[in-house]
């Protein structure tokens, strides 16, 4: 298997916020209803009748320089062959729930339940078998796609040309952030509107 860096691309200009991604992920990963690996954020802009609704996804961004993996005192986390930040051997058994990863994360992602940290793993067992992550596989609006980091960045840039005719601030977030993100996002508005820098 190659070590080509992979990425999930979220195109928020196509997202209908149906949460198929969230529930497919919960089922695949065996999460109870009150835990999730991904959530959506919403920002209204403008005033009626010229109002807009903008969306961002909040989930592990799979940083290229993953500060969570770096700081973990028991070495539970690592960057895998797809470039996603996952548990070593796909298990969190050794996590001690010390919260160092929570504090180190630039995106405020990891959460703790029953004394252990949890977050999106990039569905390593699926992508290693040639399938897509569970969220991408079920997306009904083509808002999530999966491919190599370079393919996803190129795809995003061709989409942006059309989106910018209505949303001049539209941009691709994540190519240069924190060593490049495995979770790239097409935003119709400035990243700072969602607290992203």
């Amino acid at each position, binding site marked *: 298997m190659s070590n080509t860096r992979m990425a999930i691309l979220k195109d928020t200009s196509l997202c*209908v916020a149906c949460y198929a991604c969230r529930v497919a992920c919960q089922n695949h990963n065996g999460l109870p209803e009150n835990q999730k690996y991904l*959530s959506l954020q919403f920002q209204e802009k403008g005033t009626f009748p010229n109002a807009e*609704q903008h969306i961002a996804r909040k989930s592990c961004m799979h940083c290229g320089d993953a500060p969570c993996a770096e700081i973990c005192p028991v070495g539970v986390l690592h960057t895998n062959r797809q470039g996603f930040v996952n548990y070593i051997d796909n*298990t969190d058994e050794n996590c001690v729930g010390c919260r160092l990863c929570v504090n180190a994360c630039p995106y405020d992602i990891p959460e703790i339940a029953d004394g252990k940290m949890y977050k999106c793993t990039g569905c390593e067992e699926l992508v290693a078998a040639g399938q897509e992550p569970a969220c991408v596989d079920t997306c009904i609006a083509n808002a999530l796609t999966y491919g190599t980091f370079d393919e996803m960045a190129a795809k995003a840039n061709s989409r942006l040309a059309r989106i910018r005719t209505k949303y001049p601030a539209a941009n691709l977030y994540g190519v240069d952030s924190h060593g490049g993100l495995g979770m790239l996002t097409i935003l119709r508005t400035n990243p700072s509107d969602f607290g992203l820098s």
Partner: protein
Amino acid sequence: MALSRRKFLIIAGATVAVAGGVTAGIIALNRREDDDADYQAATDPDYDDLTDFPSYTETQQAADVELKASFCNACSSHCGMWIHVKNGRAWKVTGHENHNRSLGTLCARAHGHLAWIYDPGRVRTPLKKVGENQFEPISWQQAAQEIGNKLREVRESGEAEKIFWGHNPRQTGVFYGTRFMHALGSSTVVTHNAACNTAIHCGFQNTIGRQGPAADLRRSNYLMIIGRNYGEGIRTSQATQFAEAIAREGAKVVCVDPRLSASAALADEWVPIRPGTDMAFILAMCNVLITEDLYDKGFIAEYAVGFDQFAATIGRYTPEWAEDITTIPAETITRLARELAAAAPACFVDPSWKGAFGANYANCTETVRTVAYINALLGSIGQPGGLGIGSSMATGFGNLNETHPAPPAPDVPRLDGAGRGGQFPFAPTPQGLPHNIARRAMEEPGSVKVGFIRHFNPVRTFPDHNHMKTGFEAFETLVVIETHMTETALCADYILPECSFAEREEVVENHGNTIAIRTIAVDKVYPETKSLDEIIPMLADAAGVGNYFGFTLDELNTARLAPLGITLEEMRKKGSITVPTNPNSMNPVIFYNEDFAAAGFNGVARWIEPVTGFRLADNQFRLLNVKQGYHSHTATANIPQLGQITKDYNTQRPWMNATKAAEMGIADGDWVEITSPQGTYRGQMKVTELIHPEAIAFPGGYGNRTPFFEFSASVGGVNPNDLVPFRMEPISGHAMLQETFVTLRRV
């Protein structure tokens, strides 16, 4: 494997907690012992093993995954899917790649509704009513005997026409339910449509001569979508095609909606409109197309009937006239009409579904007729990228008529007044009017002898809960075939437990160029539950008409598939198969409808206002009953994964306009009293710029009244049906879901 032991233990804990709560309600019932073998099986303590997550977890990690073909049951789209089964337990679902309604993906409801299989709140045995919300378990034998005796008595007294069947119309229920009614001597089958899209069916039937046209989203260059919300009123494939249109170079998507829905939020243009006035908007665009000579004269010459009569009425429908009614600027209306004409014929005004004019106002059937008119003016009907008229299987399903002839359709009046000779001659008869049956039962004692309801909850999904509940309780006997203790089930004299969608095989069904089957994916969790193909023959036997059901489901499906050259075994293995189709033929487009005129309605559709008008007094708002993509009406708020989305985002809140809210001193998240002539409810508001100042949008998925839906109760919310009175639209009889005003008061 990503499933860690820790996570499964968390699930196990949560499940036990819920089980404790819900079963308490059932255990409180009087248990009744008898010697029925099924009843003994149902009381065997071992039969809860499948819901024991810790023991399941012990072995699941190493287990193989088996894919079982099925289709979703969370809404009536029935998207094809694979159920992934591990150790005999449904683990997850993925979209069936060959099913034309899923195209390989599934929405949140499909994933979430696996919970229905293992829900400890399932109906586990036949139940007989002993008091308000109180039922005692009885055997199948007793249930069939008592229901059968009642049916025999009704038939012997010559009153079989006072029996009816109500359901969400999909193949298994259509086959068994209709055949059962015909065998008994009744002609009445009713569905959910009168609270959904009956105006669509009636309006198109009486203009383009067929029901259910669908926009050709894939090939259109200009999509004008009025009220329809593809991203939240989801049929998976259409949501995908909508998103493809959003992304397509050269295509323009315009969403006309009082609210910036999740769909409108993605559109090239959002045109907010005053609720209930869509017809005025469409008529004004027709005015522009005709007065500016932009319409397709070739199409009109070839297909239109009575165009001149319509053209003679159009002069008064100017964009300025419509601006006053719709609040859309006249110049916007003119521009949009011109843009449509420039894109014609690869353009459409969307035929919609429930949306803005499926069953909302007194003018909905007339609005749908004008949608047909404008698509005819654009020459888009039946054209690539236009208003599609569909296709039909080149080779149809087979049947059992040679060996097992179907009972003839009895020539008796329908109980609901729908169809020729009835109170509502234009109400589509495959769909009917369940709310009118409720009215009759109350007003004419003895008029409804026996009602059967299967997996359908009209008592909650039609306006005016008191009307529906009182009416359904006034039937001499109500039998509900269900998996869960719904509001309608609570009105029943008998509740018969059906096994869940994953535990039963069903009649092979067809949608366009797809045929699909639901196979048995997992063993029955509650062994005493039965599938419909077992229940109906049992009831028919008891009623003395069992001779019409002397075949098995396997024999039926084999016969259906035979002309297609497909074996039942192949069908089960593949799940969904693409079959050849032929395009449907074009019919004339009826602008002037003689039947309507003869019945005292308008020959040509003319502007009419909602019953409640369209101008508001101070502190009055129009109510919108809107969809969210992760709920199917009130059927899903009790699914923890889906109800939790609502809780996490507080999306049970009605929306109101920010400027109006500021005038009234209401802030986002404030609690208010919401009042209509039907009553007063407390609700927490979402204050937003994304909605017309005159509207308040109520998500329709909340406000269950059954005490058996505990998670739903914790979600909260106000159901719009509680604010709307019982009404019937004069032409098609639909339930007019949005004909009311509401007022707000800060508390």
